[in-house]
């Protein structure tokens, strides 16, 4: 469980995060979304202390994250970044085993885990372990990026627009795999994106930010059914709002009413 309490961040007196209060539940896939400059990446990077807040507190399981040494903290939190992120001078196996090695886990222990993880995302260990990132496709590389974050078995994984550089087909596949993976491993995942389709597809809850403030924090269903204001409607896009409501309605079989302001806004 991750809790933000009055978290603010200012650069040169300009406040870019203006007092965030929210809780990310255990085992939840939590999506931070918003237009560029809204502070979504900054918010995420404060969780593993790549950025420290100017004021306020962040707690993981009720313990303030500043109590721990940042290096130790980061080793306990998985991290997947945009685009490459894999180290081109290390083999796939070395990349995946990186954090376990940093944590001084025993070789026998993590080598088995590397194989399991590769198998889990459909990459045959004997075929891929000794290869270098440049010998893999973009989709394969990012699969490795995702499992690398899981290698040391962290309970929290941060993902910073991990699929945005991929082609649409690989992106869809990886999104599906992530949702499936999430159901089996039950990690807390904080996922940053600017792509609303992606957010609606994978999120348990979506936190929509604008100018460093939360505009709406809700489940995808509620976000579509009860957008808080004009900005939300605009950001989701009225067309997508209608389509997705229908899709969600059919897919998840829930009672969702289409609000009149959305329905009438073609």
């Amino acid at each position, binding site marked *: 469980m991750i809790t933000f309490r009055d978290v603010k961040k200012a650069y040169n007196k300009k406040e870019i995060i203006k007092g965030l209060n929210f809780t990310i539940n255990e085992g939840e896939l939590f999506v931070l979304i918003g237009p560029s400059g809204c502070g979504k990446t900054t918010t995420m990077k404060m969780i593993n202390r790549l950025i420290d807040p100017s004021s306020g507190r962040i707690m993981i399981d009720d313990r303030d994250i500043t109590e721990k040494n940042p*290096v130790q*903290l980061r080793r306990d939190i998985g*991290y997947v*970044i945009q685009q490459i992120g894999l180290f*081109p*001078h290390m083999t796939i196996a070395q990349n995946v085993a990186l954090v376990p090695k940093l944590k001084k886990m025993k070789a026998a222990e993590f080598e088995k885990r590397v194989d399991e993880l590769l198998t889990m995302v459909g990459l045959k260990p004997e075929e891929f372990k000794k290869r270098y*990132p440049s010998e893999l496709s973009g989709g394969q590389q990012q699969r490795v990026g995702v499992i690398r974050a899981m290698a040391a078995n962290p309970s929290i994984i*941060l993902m910073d627009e991990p699929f945005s550089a991929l082609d649409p087909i690989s992106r869809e596949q990886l999104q599906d795999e992530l949702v499936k993976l999430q159901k089996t491993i039950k990690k807390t995942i904080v996922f940053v994106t600017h792509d609303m389709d992606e957010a609606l597809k994978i999120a348990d809850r979506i936190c929509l930010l604008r100018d460093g403030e939360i505009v709406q924090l809700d489940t995808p269903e509620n976000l579509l059914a009860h957008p808080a204001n004009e900005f939300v409607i605009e950001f989701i896009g009225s067309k997508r709002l209608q389509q997705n409501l229908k899709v969600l309605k059919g897919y998840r079989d829930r009672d969702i009413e289409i609000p009149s302001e959305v329905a009438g806004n073609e």
Partner: protein
Amino acid sequence: MNDLLQFISSRHSEILQIIWQHVYISFISVGAGFIVAIPLGIILTKFEKLSKYILGFVNIIQTIPSLALLGFMIPLLGIGVTPAISALFLYSLLPMLQNTYTGIKDVDPALTNAAKGMGMTELQILMKVEIPMAVSVIMSGFRTATIYTISWATLASLIGGGGLGYLVFTGLATSNNNMIIAGALGAVLLATLTEFLTRKLQFFATPKGLRK
């Protein structure tokens, strides 16, 4: 042509000794340059402000004409092998320093960020990510420095440093064309051989996943 071969065969033991001397002063100079320039270049990447001054200073040394620099060495260190090596050492610094600095600076920040986010310490980022990623560029600086030094070492004989320059300049003074050609040819062959060897070295020093 026959004359030249005759000249070489008749004086081959002397020529071999001169070549050895040439290799020796070049190697010591570049070796010392390597030991200073690589760590210094790495340190400079962590001290932005200092780097401007140091790189600027080394750049100035580079612009001093080589004859003049060798000349400066005489009042400071006298004549012989030591001043020659000192001058060549100063020259070899820049390519290696510059390449080390830029090589590390040019490592994609996405990678160092990823490394930091995964929980590497500053030192681990340097040793496990930045240096391996920059090795190829660093070694290319070493290659440039070595080849330049081999060619500049020809001038070392002017201040009594010996080497292939001795054949060239003595040949000039005594109008012995064979001697000039033997010296020049030796320098060219040496530089070509060094080019080949340092290229191989660069290739093998580069981590496998980054070799082209």
